[in-house]
């Protein structure tokens, strides 16, 4: 077990290194992206630009620059080319919004996903099942940003029907009520897709499990249908859902809800990522990529660890 953990941790570090290096290479060669010119301003002299290049170390080989950048990320000293703000500080400032979005939406999609999937499976073939199947399909066929725009248009204050705030994020420390009020729309918009998806997965897993031998045996033993469903079928069917949830939730925490955050102007990590990429601002792009990859790889590791602990057969030697 210790060997397994150590190996995985070394693997994680290597992946983080590779991912950050690839990201660096993608952006470092872009013409016009010279940060010195950007910082120097419109009336700058050549001397001015040269000085800034030297100060930022841009005259050194690219691998040295890469190493410098990584070092300053971990020392929390890295500043953006665009705004001159501390990148780690900006990510930290975006965390409350991103975490609020992820946690709220996660609870919603998990609850509704399980509910919808179970109802569909239990009533398989009947009208409610078909309706759920159709709705779930529509749910997974909608571009999330489009759903967000339409929801904002119809349900936000500017529209006669609307009651929700148009966009923005209010910190929970400032006003818990406003925090909730501002997040309801983004939560549901982000959750719709996952509800549709989880519902479909759960439905088919439950139907598969019901046909398994041990369930048939249990049924033959005379356990009530409700008990059977809750104790045996649902419990086993939830394993893939929980796995999926772990990974999806990690991704959203890591800023994967770029589109939802952007459409609702939540100023979270995902929106910061999108903004930094469109302005070709390398320092935040690097920091966010590392941050996001850390979540993805980390949760992958946790899920594997959980599995290894649950099921000794797949525990590596």
């Amino acid at each position, binding site marked *: 077990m210790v060997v397994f953990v150590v190996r995985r941790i070394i693997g994680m570090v290597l*992946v983080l290194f*590779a*991912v950050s290096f*690839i*990201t660096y290479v*993608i*952006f470092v060669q*872009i*013409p*016009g*992206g010279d940060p010195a010119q950007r910082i120097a301003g419109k009336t700058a002299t050549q001397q001015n630009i040269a000085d800034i290049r030297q100060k930022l170390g841009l005259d050194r080989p690219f691998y040295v620059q890469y190493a410098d950048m990584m070092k300053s990320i971990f020392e929390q000293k890295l500043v953006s080319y665009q705004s001159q703000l501390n990148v780690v500080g900006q990510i930290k400032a975006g965390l409350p919004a991103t975490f609020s979005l992820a946690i709220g939406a996660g609870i919603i999609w998990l609850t509704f996903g399980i509910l919808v999937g179970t109802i569909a499976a239990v009533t398989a073939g009947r009208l409610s099942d078909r309706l759920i199947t159709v709705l779930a*399909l*529509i749910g*997974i*066929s*909608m*571009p*999330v*940003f*489009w*759903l967000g*725009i*339409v929801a*904002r*248009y119809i349900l936000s204050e*500017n529209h006669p029907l609307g009651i929700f705030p148009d966009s923005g994020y209010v910190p929970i420390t400032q006003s818990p009520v406003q925090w909730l009020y501002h997040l309801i729309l983004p939560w549901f918009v982000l959750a719709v*897709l*996952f509800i549709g*998806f989880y519902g*479909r*997965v759960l439905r*088919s897993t439950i139907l598969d499990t019901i046909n398994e031998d041990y369930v048939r045996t249990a049924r033959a033993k005379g356990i009530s249908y409700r008990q059977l469903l809750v104790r045996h079928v649902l419990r086993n069917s939830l394993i893939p859902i929980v796995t*999926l949830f772990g*990974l*999806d939730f990690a*991704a959203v925490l*890591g*800023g*994967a809800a*770029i*589109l939802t955050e*952007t*459409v609702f102007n939540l100023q979270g990590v995902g929106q910061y*990522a*999108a903004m930094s*990429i*469109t302005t*070709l601002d390398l320092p935040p*792009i690097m920091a*966010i*990529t590392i941050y*996001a*990859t850390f979540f*993805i*790889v980390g949760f*992958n590791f946790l899920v594997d660890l959980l599995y290894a602990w649950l099921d000794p057969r797949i525990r590596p030697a």
Partner: protein
Amino acid sequence: MAIDTGTELGQDSFADVAEQSRGDIAGRSPWALAWRRLRRNRVALAFLALFVLICVCCALAPVYAHDVAHTGPNDNHVGESITVDGKKVPIISVGGIKFVNGKTIFKAGGVPIGPQLWHAGGRFVLGADNNGRDIAVRLLYGGVNSLKIGIGSALICVFVAIVLSLLAAYYGGIVDFVITRIFDLTWAFPVLLLAIALGTALSINGFHHFGITVPASSLWIPTLVISYVYVPYVGRPLRGQLLSLREKEFVEASVSQGAGPLRVMFAELLPNVASTALVFFTLIIANNILTEAALSFLGAGVQPPNPSWGTLISDGQDRIATAPWLAIVPGIAIVLTVLALNVFGDGLRDALDPRAKVRIEH
């Protein structure tokens, strides 16, 4: 986003089909059996028809532009007027600033004309955008681009995934190790972040390395970026399936009869994962159309003034209060197309392999 397959998929499919079809249709090939099942699934076929219809409509974009709307997808009509039911209406509302007796008088302008349906003789059926361009024309041309990217990237993605997973499964060892690491690394990236990063970086100056030149505004950039980021999502499950097939007797038999690597890979291994790949292909088109829309929405996909459904929504977002149709209409086109593909993909999966669990997660 993640794509997953049940691990038990595939190796037993022939046995399953044989078992389920109970002799009465014995002697038919599995593909014929699948077709039989698919034909009975009216819903799936109806949605296939819808998808084909959407494709045909988009393919007719030049005809519509030329004969109905009388304008091209990128032609501006700024400062012009049209006749609606005999009345002259400016295509973009006219505003401006005037200074009268030291006072500033302002009238807001710039709001494009709304959907005219057939009141303007086929012009501006779905309204105009900021630049006075005909939205109906741009929607159809945008559909062409979105579909080209969606289908093209799905083709490339599934093809590359098949080749890589065949190589990995057949040769094993170091080849397998390298290919799996490439999959793992791409997998470890936040997928949308990677796609946006690549799309943005490449659309600045195009790609000019290794003797390959792709101009910055080319549709190949989003196509290749999208196909690249999803390769591991198809490749990993295929590799898993192929690895277990590699150990089967029929493969060993073929090898012992002197079959070369190519023959084993393409004649023995490939047919056994073909049905999985086909289902993946259908579902991944749907997925890639959504990804294209997301990339274009964030400016990392199709480059203006070229339309795509994603860029149209992006353009419309800034006009949502005064011209909501600009963002809503292309979104509906996406939902219909992706829904059609998802329903058909489900049907196809059920038909090809009733026990398969191929699925795509967003």
